[in-house]
């Protein structure tokens, strides 16, 4: 029986059709969304000419401004908190000798990736409601903490990968040359870990910026973020303003993801990129 020497899925019958369908399903809606954000008319389906009016209208919309600022505050705080926690978690899981319950800890760090988001959302809703009743505090910290929690695994992954790829001898050389553990961390480990930390922080930022489910459940009245604001808008009149906001979010996400890719790609830290 004649067999091609190596199996190549690309040569299987029907593969190109399936692949093209997938790509169309993935990208056509996004392309349409972006295109109609420049529509001169009020419709998100009928093209009436090019205009930037919906960007201007979104920019001038106070609710959008408000939600944007809130989104950025939450994403910034959450990514800083999640990244710090992720650095510590990654150090603990790569630098200390394997301890009992190691895999349990590992699973717990990655819990947000495995438990359905809606479950976490409901759980947080109930939990925070209890705290709100007990303390009376209804500020932004509930959202920041909730976002921090589900961002940790995303920040953790690139940092851990970077730590595992690092030469342990370097840290020992640092200790051998009179560096206390903290100074070795500051002068040897962190400078080399930096691309991983940055990548983790950016990933966390994007994930936080993008979240709907948990935010919708945890937020108090008047605490819309951009995604929940858009969700609210969709229930009323849909105008290309939503397209415009989505396009901006898309641009930010794509930019951060590209930066993330470049950071994790560069295998070795560049010479002299610290000091």
């Amino acid at each position: 029986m004649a067999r091609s020497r190596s199996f190549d899925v690309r040569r299987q019958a029907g593969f190109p059709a399936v692949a093209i369908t997938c790509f169309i399903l993935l990208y056509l809606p996004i392309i349409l969304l972006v295109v109609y954000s420049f529509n001169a008319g009020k419709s998100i389906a009928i093209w009436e000419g090019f205009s930037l009016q919906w960007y201007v209208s979104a920019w001038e919309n106070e609710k959008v401004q408000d939600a944007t600022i809130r989104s950025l505050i939450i994403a910034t705080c959450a990514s800083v908190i999640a990244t710090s926690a992720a650095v510590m978690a990654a150090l603990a899981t790569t630098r200390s000798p394997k301890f009992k319950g190691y895999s349990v800890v590992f699973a717990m760090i990655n819990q947000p990736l495995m438990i359905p988001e809606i479950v976490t959302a409901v759980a947080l809703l109930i939990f925070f409601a209890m705290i709100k009743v007990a303390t009376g505090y209804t500020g932004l910290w509930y959202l920041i903490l909730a976002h921090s929690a589900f961002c940790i695994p995303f920040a953790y992954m690139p940092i851990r990968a970077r730590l595992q790829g690092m030469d342990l001898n370097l840290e020992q050389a640092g200790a051998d040359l009179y560096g206390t553990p903290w100074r070795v961390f500051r002068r040897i480990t962190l400078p080399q870990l930096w691309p991983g930390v940055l990548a983790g922080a950016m990933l966390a930022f994007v994930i936080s910026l993008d979240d709907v489910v948990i935010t919708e459940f945890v937020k108090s009245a008047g605490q819309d973020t951009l995604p929940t604001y858009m969700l609210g808008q969709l229930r009323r009149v849909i105008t290309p303003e939503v397209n415009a906001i989505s396009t901006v979010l898309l641009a930010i996400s794509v930019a951060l993801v590209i930066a993330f890719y470049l950071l994790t790609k560069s295998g070795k830290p560049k010479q002299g990129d610290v000091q």
Partner: protein
Amino acid sequence: MIEIQNLTKTFGTGAEAFTALSEVSVTIRQNEFFTLLGPSGCGKTTLLRTIAGFVDPTSGTMTLDGADVLASPPYVRPVNTVFQNYALFPHMTVAENIGFGLEMQDRPKAEIKQTVGEMLELVQMTPLANRATSEISGGQQQRVALARALAPRPKVLLLDEPLSALDFKLRKEMQIELKRLQSETGITFVFVTHDQEEALTMSDRIAVMNEGQILQIGGPKEIYDHPAERFVADFIGETNFLEAELVSVDGEVAETRLPSGKTISTRAASGRAGAGKVTVAVRPEHALLEPPGALIDGKLENIVYFGTDTHYHVMLDGGARFVVRRQNQPDAVEAYTIGDAVGVSFNPGVGQVLRD
């Protein structure tokens, strides 16, 4: 200087326990070039890392200049290491690498600058001071690693097979350079290698290790000429082993009777007592090839020409093989041919009675 007593290190527990060092005792003297020599996996690195503070021994004691250092972490021990893979910091320049130890000791900036300059000079790396460590050759990296470890003026410098990654010629150069650095700085060097020639040419004293134990400690000549155990004799250079009978011992002189019936005086480690079967080690170049009727007779099996010398493989009458090595003279005519009946002899005091 360094006093190590009954040091034992066991990795793991229970069925997986592995003893990497067992009851190691050694004294390393001030300003000495001390070498740990042994096959792969014998515990050399473990011993070195214990001195540096990266390995917690299971039991035993260690003092440095009389002070117990086992409880101190690596960063307070006045000991620096040249790591096998150099472990240069990739995000720092050559000069920053060399200055790192001084910086961690919080020495004044001016002093750091001056010492780094001196160190660069010492290892002849001044022109490359501001290069990234990835932009210099292997031999240069090795010298930077050396300068980095020497800069804080440690009491002891530990070197873990620092030359093993270098090619032959560079290796020879670095061997000479290391010896020069050691005598210029007056620092005690503890050097790890599994290369017996390197150990013999560079060391003041050698500790031969096997399976986590130190078998013999002594100067190169003593180790080579008077190996105490079969392993040491075998590991360093080539050796012939002869089964013999111990007749009498007087201090370090032992009368032994060879299977041929002849007796010869040999050396034995002091304290060796009694009679019985022993093994006598004789170096090929310490033995002589003679006509039959010598100390032991046999048949010439093979002649191998090596340029500087010739090896004669003799099948002894008892059934053992024996190699005699003779230095070649210009245009000498080979007196023997394969198959000849020959004799082997060696002078009194040349043979060494082994411990086992």
